């Protein structure tokens, strides 16, 4: 039976409000389909590569956990964080690394020339990339985050959040982190187009800088000279530090969420502005 949304009726036959609603639903379906495709894409011929990646990530979390056990005392708090809280922070940072450090992949599309195809598709460029990013995050959530979460007690780490409220606010915070990540990605892509700089160099630079400033590797509170406090107000902190502090109950949740929301409000208009200003400069090089 044909779906009423796929009848292909001219817009003029319905009321304008109805037509607007139908358009929105169609757009949402397109993005949902894109998310699904992104979620299952790497499982076709790259399943074993994915398994290898997950193995490496597991080793990384083991290494970081051992590092914290070496430097932090078993009891008492260091800069407001107990060793148990830091271990939970580290494990959750790795479990949700894909969600907290997501990129849209726009840089690769720029260098491979795939961006040209994106402009031909019946959906906005921002929407396509964001849907793919969320889809990839869902895949990692099911295949890596949940297994690691279950494995945590064997690693001597309590994976549970500070409370039910913290878990709910964490979900909100991750959603805001995704929005900040996508906006930063589009801003970096615009800068790359503006500077006509190497895609790979820009990607590596962004990954290295955001891993450090976001608090994904080292909690900002444990950085020396109080620089963590300064980093806490930068947009990168909205990517990892904010959700992780909410999860572990080591920060003021409402203040952290407000900061994230403020960065979303600032960065998205900036991303739109920069992309609009630079898209005409876009030159692709092929793969």
């Amino acid at each position: 039976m044909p779906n009423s949304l796929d009848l292909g009726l001219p817009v003029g036959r319905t009321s304008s409000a109805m037509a607007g609603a139908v358009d929105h639903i169609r757009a949402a379906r397109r993005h949902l389909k894109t998310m699904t495709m992104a979620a299952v894409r790497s499982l076709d011929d790259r399943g074993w590569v994915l398994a290898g990646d997950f193995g490496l990530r597991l080793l990384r979390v083991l290494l970081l956990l051992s590092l914290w056990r070496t430097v932090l005392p078993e009891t008492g708090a260091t800069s407001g964080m107990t060793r148990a809280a830091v271990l939970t922070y580290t494990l959750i940072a790795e479990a949700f690394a894909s969600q907290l450090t997501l990129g849209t992949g726009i840089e690769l599309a720029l260098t491979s020339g795939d961006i040209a195809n994106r402009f031909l598709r019946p959906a906005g460029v921002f929407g396509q990339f964001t849907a793919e990013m969320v889809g990839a995050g869902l895949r990692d959530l099911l295949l890596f985050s949940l297994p690691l979460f279950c494995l945590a007690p064997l690693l001597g780490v309590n994976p549970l959040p500070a409370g039910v409220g913290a878990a709910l606010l964490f979900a909100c915070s991750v959603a805001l982190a995704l929005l900040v990540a996508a906006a930063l990605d589009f801003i970096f892509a615009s800068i790359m187009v503006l500077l006509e700089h190497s895609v790979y160099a820009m990607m590596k630079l962004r990954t290295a800088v955001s891993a450090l400033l976001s608090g994904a590797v080292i909690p900002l509170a444990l950085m020396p000279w109080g620089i963590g406090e300064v980093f806490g107000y930068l947009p990168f902190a909205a990517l990892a530090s904010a959700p992780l502090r909410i999860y572990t109950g080591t920060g003021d949740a409402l203040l952290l969420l407000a900061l994230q929301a403020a960065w979303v409000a600032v960065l998205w208009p900036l991303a739109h502005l920069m992309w609009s200003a630079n898209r005409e400069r876009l030159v692709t090089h092929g793969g």
Partner: protein
Amino acid sequence: MSVLTTVAARWRVQAHLDFMWMTKDLRFFLINVVGDVILNLAGVTAVFLLAERFDGIGLWARDQVIFMLGYAALVRGFLDVGFSYNVLHISRRIGRGQLDHLLVQPQPLWMGLLTEGFMPFSGCWSLLTGAGITAWAVVQLGAGFPVQWWLLFGANLLASCAMALAFSFLWGALAFWAPVAAEEMSSRAVGFLYQLKAFPLDGLSAVVLTGMLTVLPVGFVAWYPSRQLLGIAAPHLWHTPLAALLLALVAGIVFKKGMEHYAQTGSQRYIAWGHRG
């Protein structure tokens, strides 16, 4: 012309091309320099901040940690200078069929791989960053190291670079059999080494540590040779060169097997239904 003279001549050509490329535009030059320095610093900053905050990490004093970070940055710097243009990330060349571009040249494959990735001007900024960190750490350590120590330092550094290269080639050779799936295999392997190269591995369990020194030899990139050189562990300074030699041997055998397979199947790049069409 002797082999060494030929290699030197190839390097000179690459150096000239690299210099011309690097100096074509002042803005491009500055962006590259600043980008490389930031990238290499960011790779070691996390551990440095920890060492500063806790005045060392476990058995390692703060300045010893900085020495290890400098050593790790030097390894990356040498690989950037000597094996760019996807020579280090060899699976990309194999997966994309770009190995053919080397095979049609009138020189042995090894010579192409040894010389084609030489980028002394655009790649040296990481190397200089590493040299700066190491020099600073050596001064802070305040130990007058004898000439013999510096020779061992050089040998271990060379071995660490060889270890990373061999590891990348070993995993990258998978692209001979699975060009699409394994095209980015070397990037993953090298990315893993680069991510973890700066961490002290002392606190790991025996099983994981053994894995980090054998299956995934990240320990040999900086941690193991640094602790030997600084006397944190018993000084078995030949361990890293020996491990590098063994891994290079294994990588060479696997790569040769891959080449034999490649001779039968060829590249997918230039056929209509290949993944790059």
